[in-house]
């Protein structure tokens, strides 16, 4: 029996992030309450910056399998890691913003106090602040990094839980409207636990099919043509359902609008961008590496799910009157657009000259979507009425006239989400749809283009409200501190750069799109 080896060099970013989270737990115990928030904030930013540097430095290292076949550190993993850490930093900055809500963070003073009770008032009066959110953020981000890198079903399941459990807690920690926030956490938790149980049962069936949890062995089992097709099909369906739930694809979407609305806005931004990134990374590896041989079985079903997702997100989005809820439905519609590229199944290592393929299509789309979405949520935190966020459309009336700069930036984000040329969102849609087209799903691309026109309807409706309606005097656009502005400006500049000069990023993603099998 050989002793296990660990490739520390390849997994260094993971270790740094986990180390940062462990140190953050110690900070909770050792640093005095008054200085804890700043220390936690700084520690989280530094840990993620070091991890990001390590990922960037590791791009040139030969891809390899680490930790006894548990993790596959290849091109797609590195793309997802880079994006996750960039957006994780963005979310951390939003977590650390205190100026918008009058010197306190967006999180409950004491999470265990009953809303409206005397204990809660005392905690608020004492200006207590919840600093554990940074620990939870780092742990969740660690799970998100492991998930798309996982090379066997068991690692994937454990990573799924590591990323989910802190998210459930973070959802319940809003400072204002705590009942909504707790309700969102309960819904997310119950449905999330159910979907991961389904994923696990699917993993057990795939294990029964191939005799191994390793993706490569499952692939070999499919190629050999093992008899028990029932096990394969049921396992394929159940594992996919588990991941599609995290993505928010119809019919596994019912939690998305409620949880996005109820959770504190920085957490919503983190979920909307980073969870989607990790889940799509994991879905691509699961479907392309482990179940690539069965693609004729899953492509059509996934195409139907993509159509349902796009149509539902676009059509129900039209009826919304709340910006936060609108962004939730828009994220469902975006999930459908990204699935178009997944259905194409143009794996990176089988590409001809000049093709971009599904992996780089998905990743580029997510980069553009992430920049616009995180920026939009940052703007959302600044529009307030008597201290709380005002998310209704009526509150946003005339915003563009009152605050020209903020209005122009928000319009840019909305145009990017609608897929208007010269923005990152347009190029993302282009490469994602081209991947679907090349994979032989022209009809799906036609549906996707029609649906992106429908989604443009609700984005333009919000733009119209921001510029042509009479302003509401009771709504304040508060001054935000540096962290929020960094997120907004990086989002705006990134959206423009991806739209005007996408070449270098697209080349980088395409060159790294091959999975290690």
């Amino acid at each position: 029996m050989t002793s296990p080896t660990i490739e520390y060099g390849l997994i260094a970013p993971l270790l740094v992030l986990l180390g940062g989270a462990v140190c953050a737990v110690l900070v909770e115990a050792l640093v005095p309450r008054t200085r804890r928030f700043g220390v936690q904030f700084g520690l989280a930013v530094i840990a993620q910056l070091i991890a990001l540097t390590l990922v960037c430095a590791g791009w040139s290292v030969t891809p390899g399998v680490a930790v006894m076949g548990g993790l596959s550190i290849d091109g797609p993993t590195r793309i997802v890691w880079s994006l996750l850490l960039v957006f994780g930093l963005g979310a951390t900055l939003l977590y650390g913003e205190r100026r918008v809500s009058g010197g306190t963070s967006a999180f409950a003073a004491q999470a265990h106090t009953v809303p409206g009770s005397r204990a809660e008032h005392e905690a608020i009066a004492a200006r207590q602040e919840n600093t554990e959110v940074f620990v939870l953020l780092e742990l969740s981000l660690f799970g998100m990094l492991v998930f798309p890198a996982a090379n066997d079903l068991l690692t994937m399941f454990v990573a799924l839980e590591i990323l989910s459990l802190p998210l459930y807690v973070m959802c319940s920690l809003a400072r204002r409207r705590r009942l909504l926030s707790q309700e969102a956490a309960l819904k997310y938790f119950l449905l999330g636990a159910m979907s991961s149980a389904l994923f696990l049962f699917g993993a057990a069936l795939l294990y029964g099919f191939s005799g191994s949890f390793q993706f490569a062995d499952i692939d070999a089992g499919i190629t050999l043509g093992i008899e028990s097709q029932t096990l394969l099909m049921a396992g394929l369906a159940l594992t996919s359902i588990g991941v599609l739930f995290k993505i928010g694809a119809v019919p596994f979407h019912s939690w998305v609008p409620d949880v996005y609305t109820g959770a504190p806005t920085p957490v919503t931004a983190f979920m909307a961008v980073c969870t989607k990134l990790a889940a799509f990374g994991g879905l691509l590896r699961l479907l392309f590496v482990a179940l690539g041989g069965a693609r004729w079985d899953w492509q059509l079903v996934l195409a139907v799910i993509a159509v349902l997702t796009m149509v539902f997100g676009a059509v129900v989005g039209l009826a919304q009157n709340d910006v936060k809820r609108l962004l939730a439905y828009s994220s469902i519609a975006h999930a459908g657009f990204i699935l178009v590229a997944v259905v194409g199944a143009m794996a990176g290592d089988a590409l001809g000259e000049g093709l971009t393929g599904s992996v780089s299509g998905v990743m580029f789309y997510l980069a553009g979507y992430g920049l616009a979405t995180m920026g939009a949520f940052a703007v959302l935190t600044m529009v307030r009425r008597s201290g709380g966020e005002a998310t209704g459309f009526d509150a946003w009336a005339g915003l563009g006239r009152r605050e020209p700069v903020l209005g122009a930036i928000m319009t840019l984000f909305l145009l990017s989400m609608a897929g208007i040329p010269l923005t990152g969102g347009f190029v993302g849609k282009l490469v994602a749809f081209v991947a679907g087209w090349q994979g032989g799903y022209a009809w799906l691309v036609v549906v996707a283009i029609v649906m992106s026109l429908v989604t443009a309807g609700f984005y333009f409706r919000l733009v119209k409200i921001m510029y042509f309606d009479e302003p509401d005097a009771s709504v304040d656009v508060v001054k935000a501190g540096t962290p929020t502005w960094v997120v907004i400006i990086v989002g705006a500049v990134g959206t423009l750069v991806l739209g005007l000069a996408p070449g270098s990023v697209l080349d980088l993603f395409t060159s790294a799109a091959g999975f290690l099998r």
Partner: protein
Amino acid sequence: MNPNAYIILSAILLCIGLFGFMVRRNALIAFMSVELMLNAANLAMVTFSHVHGGLDGQIAAFFVMVVAAAEVVVGLAIIITIFRTRQSASVDDENLLKH
């Protein structure tokens, strides 16, 4: 030993769990149903482990138990927080966030 019986039992347990999750309105019962689904998967993995003659499935079952324990901690914390606020653990009462 015929493994089919165990596989069928685990599928039945999964269906009972799924059915309980859909039908029961109490958050605690719904959560217990999820735990039943996890244990159905455990039974399936241990059985397949026996069929294939390896240890992978049995080791996986231990991982699942640890994960389930962590999930219980988080889940009960959320359910108890809500119960202290509303004196109710029924998921039908959670209707502030409507479409």
